[in-house]
């Protein structure tokens, strides 16, 4: 992201190690102004982000170590890690963790395959490329709650075309079928986003290379596996990272489709229920902290083990 032009950087780096104090003073006048402008321009964005996330994160750590239930405010007490013990030994919490992990893995895996197919179709479309692109953007842009309602009504026996077509079983009232519907809704909504990121990666694959491979007799599948995928690897990893973290936060679809009944709560859903419905700030904050830790681990694994170039990191910007 550090996208300073070469001349600017040269001037800047020439200034700081300059041994002669006279020269340094002369150069630092302009540099000082640049610094001040830089800070000034960034200040509003930085201050907002810190104000809305920084203190709340600390505060949630503090809350998570207290017994703090708005229904019983006078029983508020400092209890250190008891909330963590309570949450970590609760079967509801572990069920929610498994539901979230399952939904994340299944939806992201299917989205990757579907998104890749979609990206290839859009990339190679001969006719109606614009139409295909526009229509695939619609699921991305549509309000998740709206889409979720559309699926809910479709699966409601009596009202919905899908329920009618499949014999009128109330699928949303049983755990596994309900989770499948949630996964379907999630996949429908976010595959286009995956496809767009992958398509941008596809554009980086040089046509000449593919043509040369074709001349040498490589089949379409071989060309895809041996040439396209390795070149696209950074784009694929970034898309996977984004989608995994996003899928892990699943909330809207579940809220509308099952409201977390029949053991279909995700970790976000469970936190919401404890916090807003149960008004238990201590337990809610504990769950928040645990989710934060899990997300940090996922991001760490992607960035360190798979070498995903985080978007906005230096070499990404210099490309």
């Amino acid at each position, binding site marked *: 992201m550090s996208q300073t032009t070469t001349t600017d950087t040269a001037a800047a780096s020439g200034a700081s190690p300059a041994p002669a104090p006279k020269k340094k003073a002369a150069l630092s006048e302009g540099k000082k102004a640049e610094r001040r402008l830089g800070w000034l321009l960034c200040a509003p964005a930085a201050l907002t982000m810190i104000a809305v996330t920084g203190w709340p994160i600390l505060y949630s750590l503090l809350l998570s170590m207290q017994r703090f239930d708005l229904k019983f405010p006078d029983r508020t007490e400092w209890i250190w890690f008891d909330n963590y013990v309570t949450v970590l030994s609760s079967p509801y919490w572990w069920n929610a963790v498994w539901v979230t992990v399952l939904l994340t893995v299944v939806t992201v895996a299917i989205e990757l395959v579907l998104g890749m197919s979609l990206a290839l179709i859009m990339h*190679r479309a001969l006719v109606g490329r614009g139409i295909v692109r526009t229509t695939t953007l619609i699921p991305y842009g549509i*309000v*998740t*709650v709206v889409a979720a309602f*559309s699926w809910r009504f479709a699966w409601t026996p009596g*009202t919905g075309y899908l329920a009618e077509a499949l014999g009128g079983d109330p699928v949303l009232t049983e755990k596994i079928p309900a989770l499948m519907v949630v996964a379907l809704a999630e996949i429908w909504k976010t595959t286009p986003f995956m496809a767009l990121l992958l398509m941008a990666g596809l554009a980086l694959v040089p046509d000449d290379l593919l043509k040369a491979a074709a001349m040498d007799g490589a089949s379409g599948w071989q060309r895809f596996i041996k040439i396209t995928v390795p070149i696209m690897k950074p784009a694929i990893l970034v898309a996977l990272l984004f989608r995994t973290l996003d899928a892990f*936060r699943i909330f809207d679809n579940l809220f509308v489709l099952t409201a977390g009944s029949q053991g279909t709560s995700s970790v976000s859903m469970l*936190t919401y229920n404890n916090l807003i419905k149960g008004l238990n700030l201590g337990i809610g904050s504990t769950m*928040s902290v645990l989710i934060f830790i899990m997300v940090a681990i996922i991001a760490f694994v992607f960035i360190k083990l798979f070498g995903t170039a985080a*978007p906005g990191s230096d070499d990404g910007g210099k490309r």
Partner: protein
Amino acid sequence: MAGIGGAETTGKKVGWGLLNAVVVIYALVPVLWIVSLSFKSSATLADGNFIPREWSLENYQNIFSTSEFTRALFNSIGIAVIATAIAVVFGTMAAYAIARLDFPGKNLLVGVSLLIAMFPQVSLVSPLFEIERTLGLFDTWPGLILPYITFALPLAIYTLSAFFREIPWELEKAAKMDGATPGQAFRRVIAPLAAPGVFTTAILVFIFCWNDFLFAISLTSTEQSRTVPVALSFFTGSSQFEDPAGSIAAAAVVITIPIILFVLFFQRRIVAGLTSGAVKG
């Protein structure tokens, strides 16, 4: 890749056409279904037909006759527009500084905004709920606008700095040579050139604010600041025994229209904005 075979046979073209058709159907069926529901009369609402047997506007009349929906629509538009405006202004300033200026703390800012982009939003809901209750921001417009700006800023900063990279910076240098200060060069030369990027970012940020459900449902409690996605989930129908599906569908269609219009008119820009931020870094 398209040209590998040389001449494309008509068979291939038909094949691609079919694939395209599948994609289009895939994307549109759920949308058409909710549109269809919204036009069904209350008598035929529960018939399970994909195409209404009897078209009627009664659902739309219903939702626009209650303040429950109109007030939520007003909240949604107001909150999304204000949050978008502020996020885009702050984001533009920061992205310009990140793309163009050299100052300590730059990488830190980029790192922090990346963190926020990946942040599990539900982790913020508990502390924000309590802090906003204390500060009196709970269930107010600013109470939603602030988190929206915060989560829109990383998106804005990435997209905008990607756009800023494409701008011919020689022009800025030329302006400086002619005696413009860095500030003037920013306002007079770069800002007009960056306008398309800013516009694209505004659309993406607007879609984000328009779509949000988690903050909206956790940080509001009354009509005063409830946005449409939340209001939808509280619709109960005009009487206790009436199925709210029709009203929900009609309201859903109303809030989907702006998104569809954006997508139709700015498809190219939205794609460019989404992918520039994420893939090119």
